């Protein structure tokens, strides 16, 4: 282990590992740290990814693909079913991963590309010199060390501290977070579709999901908007759902988590600092999906680090390219999703039923959400008027 690096990445999730791999492949000296003693575990994720997005970064491997899906189904509060197909629905359908294996493989790829990796190592502060972040204070086995770096990447998830230490306010308001509980349920027929149950009835301000994981198991979970949490809790609602809809299901694992649904935040770079993935609040405010966004952002961050190293300039002037590039791609999608989320959290269950009914007689099975939405708007302009700028 060295005492100084070109780039230190805090957090070995998909975003951090892709950043590390990208930098290491270009010959940069890279350190990837993970505060847990096991990369990828415990999972805080429903594990669904779109095929296309995934394959931009890694070839699918049966070691970490739990299930391949035919498509998605959305259920309105009254049970009306909307089917959407796999080939069209790139975001939602695709694969359900085994994140415990997947995250390790990505970290391993970063290591094989030349990155140093430290587990059970937690960043506890940032080093500064000449108005720039210049490394981290880290704790390993109770010992504090200082490790220098030209650039620090905060890929430290929903609970990110790196941004805050660097002067970027990443704190989430209750309306900016979906608070979730998920069971891995066995002894059920999980089917071949990812299922989404929407409405206050299931999950106020969020949705309930059933994502098959093969072998008669599925991730069954729900997220509710933080602002609607308190008197109800995700864990209680999920138990209630299980009792009613899958009384024979056996819970063989439980996980909890918070998903940022704030949409793009104002700032994700500072001098010598870049935020990636959930730490940069890049998860989708509508679907909660964040894996591909984090990997895409990690790739961009890595490329910008390489450029900064070439120029010997680690200031915002150079790092801003990261900000510009992710906003033009991921950011645009996040903003659209945020508009839809902000509307959906106000829509009543009755109105959701109405929306679902308006699609009767239309074959949506080959369409993805971006294609279904304009149809919904055309048939329900009153309910969806707030979204007109997306369609007109």
């Amino acid at each position, binding site marked *: 282990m060295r005492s100084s690096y070109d780039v230190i990445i805090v957090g070995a999730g998909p975003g951090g590992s892709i950043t590390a791999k990208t930098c290491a492949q270009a010959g940069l000296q890279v350190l990837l740290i993970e505060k847990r*003693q096991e990369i990828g575990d415990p999972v805080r994720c429903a594990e669904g990814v779109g095929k296309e997005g995934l394959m931009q970064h890694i070839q699918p491997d049966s070691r970490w693909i739990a299930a391949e899906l035919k498509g998605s189904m959305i259920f309105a509060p009254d049970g009306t079913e909307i089917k959407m197909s796999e080939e069209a629905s790139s975001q939602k359908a695709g694969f359900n991963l085994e994140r415990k294996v997947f995250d390790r493989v990505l970290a391993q790829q970063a290591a094989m590309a030349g990155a140093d990796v430290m587990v059970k190592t937690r960043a506890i502060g940032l080093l500064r010199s000449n108005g720039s972040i210049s490394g981290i204070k880290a704790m390993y086995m109770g010992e504090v060390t200082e490790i220098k770096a030209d650039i620090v990447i905060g890929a430290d998830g*929903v609970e990110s501290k790196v941004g805050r230490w660097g002067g970027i306010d990443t704190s989430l308001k209750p309306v900016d*977070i979906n608070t979730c509980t998920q069971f891995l349920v066995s002894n059920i027929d999980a089917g071949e579709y990812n299922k989404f149950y929407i409405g206050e009835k299931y999950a106020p301000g969020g949705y309930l999901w059933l994502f098959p994981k093969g072998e008669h198991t599925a991730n069954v979970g729900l997220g509710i908007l*933080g602002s609607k949490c308190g008197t109800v809790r995700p864990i209680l609602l999920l138990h209630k759902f299980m009792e009613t809809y899958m009384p024979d299901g056996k819970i063989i694992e439980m996980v*909890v988590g*918070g998903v940022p649904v704030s949409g793009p935040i104002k700032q994700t770079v500072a001098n010598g600092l870049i935020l990636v993935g959930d730490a940069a609040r890049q998860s989708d405010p509508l679907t909660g999906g964040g894996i591909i966004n984090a990997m895409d952002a990690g790739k961009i961050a890595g490329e910008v680090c390489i450029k900064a190293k070439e120029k010997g300039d680690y200031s915002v002037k150079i790092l801003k390219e990261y900000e510009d590039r992710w906003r033009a791609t991921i950011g645009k999608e996040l903003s659209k999703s945020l508009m839809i989320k902000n509307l959906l959290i106000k829509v009543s269950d009755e109105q959701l039923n109405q929306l679902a009914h308006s699609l009767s007689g239309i074959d949506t099975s080959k369409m993805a959400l971006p294609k279904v939405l304009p149809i919904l708007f055309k048939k329900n302009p009153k309910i969806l008027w707030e979204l007109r700028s997306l369609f007109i």
Partner: protein
Amino acid sequence: MSVIVNRYKCGYCGACVGVCPVGALELVETWIEVDNTCTSCGVCAKICPVGALGVVK
């Protein structure tokens, strides 16, 4: 002023850390630590998915 974490309930997900307006919380492996900057605002307790946090005024 502080929050009390019921470690027997807590799923160490870090959601509370993300919403803390003053950065008083930290997720360390499998437990939550609270420092003395906590203002007892209660946002963490509100959003906890399992209700593991309680505010002390």
